[in-house]
């Protein structure tokens, strides 16, 4: 019983981590139609900023708060300088963002010397329930993920900002003809997606330690999650991430991890083959 | 009968777009399909051409049940569709658009090895000339105005020499004069082809069609020759009713 509880918690917490990482990716992919290969590097930057705060002796949570803002600002700038040119050609965009990711990743690698560096959790230790130990930080991540998810959902579905965003990304010229400033919306959306990645990076760095390939590690998983969930909505990728995350954490409990690893991907592809619109077909938010 | 669609039902979520609609078209018949907006005309056309799978009902074509056929198989059996929303191949030239339509039924071997291009050149240019597009043959289709794209689409639909041509609002965005010309262009194909045409312009329909089917709320309200339909009281009623 206790065992099952621990298992459920661990699986859930990894699912939450994947959801957190995929949130930004999903928003950019679903709403802007750009499969952003640099998304992993935004996660990395978020992690790096948190590390910097720690290394400079500032409180870690300060780094964590700063990360989404800094990465978001960077995303905004990159959108205006680079991404903006790609909207008409999604595949070129993949390659463009790939190059961008490469640049960021290799630069960060240079900055951290290619090492694996530890960043302590702001809330460390474990919550003990009887003989069971539950990581306090992982628990915090679950809570924050839920909050962020709800916040994003409300933002997109309930505010006029969300409406503008969806309208712009759906049909920009018509959006302009409805009086919406599309360049601003594009910038804002991309910045928002980047900021979420930055936040994800900041939150997960204590769990996984900082290294240059931190973001890359989750990228393919993220794309698959987006597809499984269904491109075109906010909820879809989130649901997909939940499924992929929990599956990758759950399968190793019942089979050889090496098999589980490949199996998750194969299952995902087969699923998409027979349900191309994804878990949640692309409508609504 | 060339085409027999019977008992077609199409349900989208909560909405029943077609509720037992039927359509039968004979050889060399021009058949008009009319009805208010949202009455299910386009949906019925799509069910016939295979773009939508009907929830219920059967479609048979040249005495074969084709309900389970894919669009490709239907096209190969001799059906050709022009969508309501124009869908030309935007970055190919007009020439290539037509050429593609012309040789859709060729075998793979022919596609790869035979020199159909030379052989088909005159046909392509003739088609383009008919539709007054010849001088733009080597421009990308995206550079056409909306009306010009409609024409290109009609030309493409005709190019495959279909037994049955399905046109969904081919004259949208055309002036009266242009409609007349389109009507004239369509007349000669009657020798070898039947036509189902969706239109809102009654005068146009009256001029070219032999028979009419009127749809309303997914059901056939009436079907018959043009004078019969014009005399039909329930048809007159929906024409008066506000949408």
């Amino acid at each position, binding site marked *: 019983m206790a065992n099952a509880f621990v298992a459920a918690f661990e699986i859930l917490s990894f699912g939450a981590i994947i959801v957190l990482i995929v949130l930004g990716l999903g928003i950019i992919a679903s709403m802007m139609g750009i499969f952003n290969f640099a998304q992993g590097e935004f996660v990395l930057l978020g992690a790096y900023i948190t590390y910097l705060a720690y290394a400079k002796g500032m409180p870690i949570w300060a780094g964590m708060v700063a990360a989404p803002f800094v990465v978001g600002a960077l995303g905004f700038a990159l959108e205006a300088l680079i991404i903006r040119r790609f909207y008409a050609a999604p595949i070129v965009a993949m390659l463009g963002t790939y190059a961008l990711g490469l640049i960021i990743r290799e630069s960060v690698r240079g900055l951290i010397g290619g090492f694996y560096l530890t960043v302590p959790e702001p809330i460390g230790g474990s919550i003990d329930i009887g003989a069971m130990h539950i990581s306090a930080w992982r628990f915090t991540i679950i809570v924050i993920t839920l909050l962020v998810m709800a916040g994003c959902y409300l933002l997109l579905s309930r505010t006029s900002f969300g409406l503008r965003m969806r309208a712009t990304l759906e049909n920009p010229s018509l959006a302009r003809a409805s009086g919406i400033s599309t360049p601003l919306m594009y910038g804002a959306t991309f910045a928002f997606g980047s900021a979420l990645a930055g936040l994800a990076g900041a939150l997960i760095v204590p769990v996984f330690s900082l290294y240059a390939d931190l973001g890359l590690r989750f990228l393919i998983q993220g794309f698959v999650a987006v597809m499984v969930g269904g491109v075109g909505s906010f909820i879809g990728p989130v649901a997909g991430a939940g499924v992929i995350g929990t599956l990758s954490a759950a399968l190793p409990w019942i089979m*050889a991890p090496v098999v589980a690893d490949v199996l998750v991907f194969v299952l995902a592809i087969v699923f998409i083959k027979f349900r191309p619109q994804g878990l949640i077909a692309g409508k609504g938010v | 009968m060339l085409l027999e669609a019977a008992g077609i039902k199409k349900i989208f979520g909560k909405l029943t777009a077609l509720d037992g609609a039927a359509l039968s078209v004979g050889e060399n018949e021009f058949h008009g399909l009319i009805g208010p907006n949202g009455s299910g005309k386009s949906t019925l056309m799509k069910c016939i051409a295979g773009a939508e799978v009907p929830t219920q009902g059967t479609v048979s074509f040249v005495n074969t049940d084709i309900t389970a056929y894919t669009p490709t198989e239907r096209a190969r059996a001799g059906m050709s569709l022009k969508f309501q929303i124009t869908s030309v191949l935007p970055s190919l030239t007009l020439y290539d658009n037509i050429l593609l339509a012309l040789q859709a039924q060729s075998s793979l071997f022919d596609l790869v090895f035979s020199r159909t291009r030379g052989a088909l050149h005159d046909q392509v240019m003739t088609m383009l000339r008919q539709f007054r597009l010849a001088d733009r043959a080597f421009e990308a289709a995206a550079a056409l105005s909306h009306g010009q794209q409609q024409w290109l689409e009609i030309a493409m639909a005709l190019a495959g020499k279909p037994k049955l041509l399905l046109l969904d609002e081919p004259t949208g965005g055309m002036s009266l004069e242009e409609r007349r010309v389109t009507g004239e262009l369509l007349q000669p194909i009657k020798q070898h082809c039947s036509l189902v045409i969706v239109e809102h312009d009654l005068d146009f329909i009256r001029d070219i069609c032999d028979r009419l089917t009127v749809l309303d709320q997914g059901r056939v309200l009436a079907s018959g020759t043009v004078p019969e339909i014009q005399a039909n009281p329930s048809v007159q009623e929906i024409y008066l009713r506000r949408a």
Partner: protein
Amino acid sequence: PAPWANAAEAPIKVGIATDLTGPIAYAGNADANVAKMVIKEINAAGGLLGRPLELYIEDTASNESVAVGNVRKLIQRDKVDMVLGGITSSMRNAIKDPIVARGKTLYIYPQLYEGKECTPYLFCTGPTPAQQCDEFIPWLIKNGGKKFALPSANYVWPHTLNVYARKVIEANGGEVVFEEYYPLDQVDFSATVNRIVSNKVDVVFNTVIPPGVGPFFKQLYEAGFLKNGGRLACVYYDENTLNINQAAEIEGLASCLDYFKVLTKENPFDAKIQAAYEKDFPGNFLFAAGSAATGTYRGLKLWEAAVKEAGKIDRESVAAALDHAKIAEGPGGPAEMVPGKRHCKMKMYTAVAKGGNYEIVARSSGLVDPKEC
């Protein structure tokens, strides 16, 4: 620089092929630095055979395809007399053919590895499974317990090492509770940790590598493994890897290598090279055993000895001399090639992490045999 006795002859060319970029660049750069240091030192002492040494460094970029191209540059363009490098086994496999078979050149591989490399003209100067397990595992059983778990990354080194380790464990009355392999980039180990805790494992003999090892140790710690008296063991852990986790999470972790920096306290020669290295290369790239830096030092010095003995630089003569080359001083102590085996005997040390630093807890009495080939 020093006046060369045989300056008229062209310099002797030393090729280094290592990961200057890519995920393990920290190791590759340290190796390249060590090579620069050693070559400088040899040149300062008058070169070899009266000729200066010239260093050619190429990047293997953790990408075998790039590596082969660059190694060809060393062999075919620069015509080096010897190549030292490659860190991972797959890299060694990729570049050994262009160097040894097609390139007809001498190859020294400096990293600790799984053993079984018996290609002629290929010399290994890092520790082998026998060197890392023979004394270490009995120590673990005594200082940890009998129940072992072998969680591993799924590639050749852990597989081969585990075969050896299991033998030693069982020979010493221990027991392997489970041996399990994970994808190289697996980062979630909840299932494994659960298995370790519920099976009451005493020693986790870990061959999971970064990036997975950080989260793995953390999850183990959070599950109370250390608190309940468990012992972590990891034979590639050196000063570089100490920073992956917070000190508390790996308190008591034991490792067995040919060199630890703490040795500088007791060993003047180690203090000397460590100081020389840190003076020349004060940056982040540490002089450490796990990144092949010590193997690189040892390899170059052994090769120097062999060239001196051969008096010539052609491959056959140097290989013949290298076969039984010895150095009296190296990182961690003396080293000597085992004749006919192309592997190296060296001293081994067992160290335990305490508060973010290592403490030496055991050392081999003499040079340990690699037991290869």
